[in-house]
């Protein structure tokens, strides 16, 4: 297919982003084809959501409806939620447990691996009707995704060409993921937001270190980080994923009381912290191209998956987790700390607003571009400070690599790693 191959990407160093990528319908279709069903690993959920045989969740890979479930063999399988017969939705519940999956339209029945196990009227009735003699159930399976797990996270891919998951993640991402999954996890609940904006402006936000001290004034006032946050951004070897960490202000850890007078709050329970990891990190976000962030803010832990709706709309689905061994006190503290994240969270609600503000502003200006300058225009590499947009440039470079635009093919060589 030939989608908008004339997109002109002026910037050789991915510091100028043409606005049409945020709104163009053809670009969106190309993203599904080149990225979401391309050689990437998509976050599909957590093992803790489906601990038992027959447990299933429905989800979206990009905007493609899928089912993820656990089979009797203990393994996890994922497939497109579309019947191989007449393309009807097979699994109609959000989550649950089921011995098999039967499409209600014509009762085609599939097992946990997505294999067709039963079709009605195969031989017809009394020799009349039915399917052709050469009908073979084995050639009518649900479309499967390849699945690999890391710790408790389930990743899937439609592509045979994708790297093994461990290579895809790389050591820069595996290290903080090990912190996130340092103990067996338990799902505490879900949070969702529908946002009028383009999914990529949200991914930009995840790897943008500058805005933390500027947009999120409460976090600064409460001492979660300073107005110039102390931390850094580590990128994987392609710059596509990022690990962004901020340290506590030196004098603030465990000293919520200190802020009572500074910012007249009555109850600072949500800003208290239990030292679970023996480090000084207050905020730790791991963004994995193209659809997930693993976030730890203080003691609040969640995954946040980006699900596409259309070029101007996306949904965030967060899974809030705790550790199985949590004391009741720690469990309660995690609930209190939702004050930071989610649709009513003091930090996260501002991020969702930022995405909408871009969406509103760019209408009718496809030939304009946005600018990424913090951290310079040079090599895309890890940074020992967060005052940089280098992770955002890394995202765009890998995006262009997969999208394979005529105008950026040569530019990829301009920077290292390719």
């Amino acid at each position, binding site marked *: 297919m030939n989608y908008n191959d004339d997109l002109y990407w002026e910037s050789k160093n991915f510091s100028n982003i043409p606005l049409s990528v945020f709104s163009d319908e053809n670009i969106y279709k190309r993203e599904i084809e080149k990225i979401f069903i391309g050689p990437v690993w998509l976050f599909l959920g957590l093992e803790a959501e489906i601990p038992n045989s027959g447990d299933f969740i429905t989800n979206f890979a990009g905007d493609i409806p899928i089912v993820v479930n656990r089979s009797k063999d203990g393994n996890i399988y994922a497939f497109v939620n579309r019947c191989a017969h007449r393309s009807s939705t097979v699994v109609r519940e959000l989550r649950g447990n089921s011995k098999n999956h039967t499409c209600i339209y014509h009762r085609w029945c599939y097992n946990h691996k997505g294999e067709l196990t039963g079709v009605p009227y195969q031989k017809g009735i009394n020799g009349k009707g039915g399917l052709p003699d050469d009908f073979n159930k084995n050639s009518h399976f649900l479309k499967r995704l390849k699945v690999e797990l890391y710790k408790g996270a389930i990743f899937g891919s439609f592509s045979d060409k994708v790297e093994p998951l461990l290579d895809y993640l790389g050591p820069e991402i595996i290290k903080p993921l090990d912190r996130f999954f340092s103990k067996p996890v338990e799902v505490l609940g879900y949070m969702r*937001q529908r946002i009028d904006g383009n999914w990529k402006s949200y991914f930009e936000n995840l790897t943008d270190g500058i805005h933390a001290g500027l947009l999120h004034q409460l976090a600064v006032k409460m001492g979660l980080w300073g107005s110039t946050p102390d931390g850094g951004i580590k990128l994987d070897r392609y710059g596509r994923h990022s690990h962004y960490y901020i340290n506590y202000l030196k004098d603030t850890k465990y000293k919520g009381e200190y802020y009572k007078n500074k910012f007249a709050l*009555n109850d600072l329970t949500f800003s208290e912290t239990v030292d679970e990891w023996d480090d000084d990190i207050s905020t730790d976000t791991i963004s994995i191209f193209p659809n997930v962030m693993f976030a730890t803010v203080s003691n609040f832990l969640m995954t946040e998956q980006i699900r596409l709706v259309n070029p101007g709309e996306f949904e965030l689905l967060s899974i809030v987790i705790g550790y199985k061994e949590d004391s009741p006190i720690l469990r309660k503290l995690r609930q209190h700390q939702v*004050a930071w994240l989610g*649709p*009513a969270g003091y930090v996260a*609600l501002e991020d969702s607003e930022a995405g909408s503000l871009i969406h509103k502003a760019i209408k009718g200006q496809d030939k304009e571009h946005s600018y990424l300058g913090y951290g310079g225009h040079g090599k895309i590499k890890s940074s020992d400070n967060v005052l940089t947009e280098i992770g955002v440039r890394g995202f765009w470079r890998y995006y262009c690599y997969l999208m394979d635009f005529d105008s950026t093919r040569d530019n990829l060589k301009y920077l290292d790693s390719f």
Partner: protein
Amino acid sequence: MKSTYNIDLSKIEVIRLLFYKYAQCIDDSNLDEWPNFFVDDCLYRIIPKENENFEEPFAILYADNKNQLKDRVFIIKKALVYSLRYYRHNITNIFTNKIEDGIYHVTSNYVVYSTDQVSGQTILFSVGKYKSEIILKNKKPYFKKLDVLVDTFSIQRQMPIPL
């Protein structure tokens, strides 16, 4: 425990007024008054429908005393960046299910519309149910517990302001 039909109707009317005043307070952007609808050791939670079946339903907004409600109001006014909108509550089906130890267990339905302050456009923002425990102090009703059980569990943009 009294049967619902034997309740003093004047008290039922007082409880109805509590819900209407509560809605008026938020809809008129009079948030400073909002915490005063609660007792000091209150519990206020906004719980998405998809979390209701968990043993301990996870709330996206959680406060277990009145001070935390006051803090949210303060933070909304002093620190937060969010899309500017007006809320409009319709509260119906206010029903006292039981009275036990002086606590009125009251449920009601709500519909909240949200109007963008810049574009003037209105959306149906949230539909759900209030599940509350109300006590009377000096004949005045207060929420001891207010759970907002949200049917619309995929939230449009964000939910900075309480429902």
